[in-house]
């Protein structure tokens, strides 16, 4: 059996005065294995940051345990801090130090020679080097993110804890960032990463969907998609929002949501594709309807709406 990079068990955390004490984490458990990219996927307010801060030993849970690289987060925080690299959601490097100075500072804090560290982060540092005399506060979003990653990696951590590293980042930079993460994985670093983007979820080895402080499901992206319990019909053509209205008015759809240029329909029990086609014939536009495979986003929406209906 593989050992754990981050194993959390029944974590609970309530912030006082948070809308009358709603739980930020409400019994969260998962086991991220050594050597894998484990994604925590969910919207703002789901509890992702709280979880990341507990994993980084910055806050304590009200109850439950977190074991990071074999150490207990409550008792062994100093040892954990030496072997993890943490990148908070908010840019937290020294804005009035240069790129070079920030890296030197973090190398010193972690007791490594800057030269050794830089060798290790060479792939990323190469892109920063032409700007090494620039103040961190004057860097663009993409460069700040890469510098933060350099500083988190300088001491060769076993586990990277990345709290929404790509929020507000454009699609091209996001893809580059994930290419870097895949390379980190190749050299044996485990990654615990949170994101609201479903396309990034697909690049993780395993993911946990989180919503309102609860884990909805944990598995590989492939297994989650394969386990989608319902049919999906995909309709396209005509104007999206008119199409959605027609579908919802038809009484045939359990749900109908836009997915780019088409829309995904979860049909009501027994509704057939022919029924949908017939119904749409009488609406405006030329629609085509076909059965389609579920995406991770369909799965998240389905699990999340189930959770909402129960509570």
């Amino acid at each position, binding site marked *: 059996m593989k050992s754990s990079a981050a194993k959390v068990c029944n974590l609970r955390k309530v912030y006082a005065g948070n809308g009358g004490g709603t739980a930020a984490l409400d019994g969260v458990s998962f086991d991220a294995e050594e050597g894998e990219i484990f994604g925590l996927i969910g919207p703002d307010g789901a509890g992702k940051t709280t979880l990341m801060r507990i994993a980084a030993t910055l806050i304590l849970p009200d109850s439950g345990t977190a074991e990071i690289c074999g150490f207990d987060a409550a008792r062994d925080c100093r040892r954990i801090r030496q072997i993890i690299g943490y990148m908070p959601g908010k840019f937290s490097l020294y804005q009035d130090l240069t790129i070079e100075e920030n890296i030197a500072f973090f190398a010193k804090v972690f007791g490594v020679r800057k030269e050794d560290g830089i060798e290790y982060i060479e792939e990323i540092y190469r892109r920063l080097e032409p700007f090494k005399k620039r103040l961190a506060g004057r860097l663009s979003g993409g460069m700040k993110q890469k510098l933060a990653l350099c500083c988190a990696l300088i001491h060769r951590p076993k586990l990277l804890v990345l709290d929404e590293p790509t929020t507000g980042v454009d699609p091209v*930079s996001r893809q580059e960032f994930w290419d870097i993460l895949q390379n980190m994985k190749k050299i044996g670093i485990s990654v615990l990463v949170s994101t609201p983007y479903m396309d990034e979820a697909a690049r993780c080895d395993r993911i946990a969907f989180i919503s309102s402080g609860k884990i909805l499901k944990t598995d590989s992206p492939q297994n989650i998609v394969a386990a989608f319990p319902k049919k999906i019909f995909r309709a396209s053509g005509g104007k999206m929002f008119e199409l959605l209205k027609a579908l919802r008015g038809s009484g045939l759809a359990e749900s109908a949501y836009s997915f780019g240029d088409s829309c995904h329909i979860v049909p009501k029990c027994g509704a057939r594709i022919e029924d949908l086609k017939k119904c749409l014939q009488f609406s405006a536009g030329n629609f085509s309807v076909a059965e389609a495979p579920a995406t991770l986003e369909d799965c998240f929406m389905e699990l999340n709406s189930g959770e909402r209906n129960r509570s």
Partner: protein
Amino acid sequence: MNAIEVKGITKKFGDFVAVDSISFEVGTGEIFGFLGANGAGKSTAMRMLCGLLEPTSGEAKVAGFDIYKQREQIKKSIGYMSQKFSLYGDLTVAENIKFWGGLYGLTKAEIRAKEEEIVEKLEMRGWENSFVASLPMGWKQKLAFSISIMHSPKIVFLDEPTGGVDPIVRRKFWEEIYDASLRSITVFVTTHYMDEAEYCDRASIMVDGQIRALGTPAELKKKFGRADMDGVFKDLARGAQRKDA
């Protein structure tokens, strides 16, 4: 009349050309997607259109007003919302409506009427005195949008309105956008979600301060031979010279 008319506006900061002679028009009631990579110049362009920043050169009219001489009139004719900042979490629903209504120059009576209307429409009766921070994300989002158009602006600027938002809330929000456009409110929106680019009537893509592509999503996909807007965006943005490492 077009809601926005831009002819060759440029903004330089020292030697750096943040926005490099962009031109486009946005029709009344249109949903216009303003796309681009980080650092492409979107925010600078948007600040000029909102009357917050004077261009270095070029001409533009927003809601019929000149962006050099009539900036105050522009500010009164537009609404603005972003995901990062829009409402005060430590004010209640009613207080936020009063505060923004006041800023937008509505009278007390108008604000009272709007408060009724918004609370009714969003089915928030009984929540008027709750702190905005305590509202579920979906409500916060809808409330922020309703408030950004409470003064019936000609144009609403939405700056990454759906960043980090739950997938269902994000989709419902776009249905609100569509409703607003049906009421002839022009929508100028930025997003990093390329599926949302498909919901725009037309979209432009900025690279290195210039608009490199502009058209309906169908036209752009055809032109670039891509199945979706994500492909179109990546083709264009990868060619950027202004590489931020």
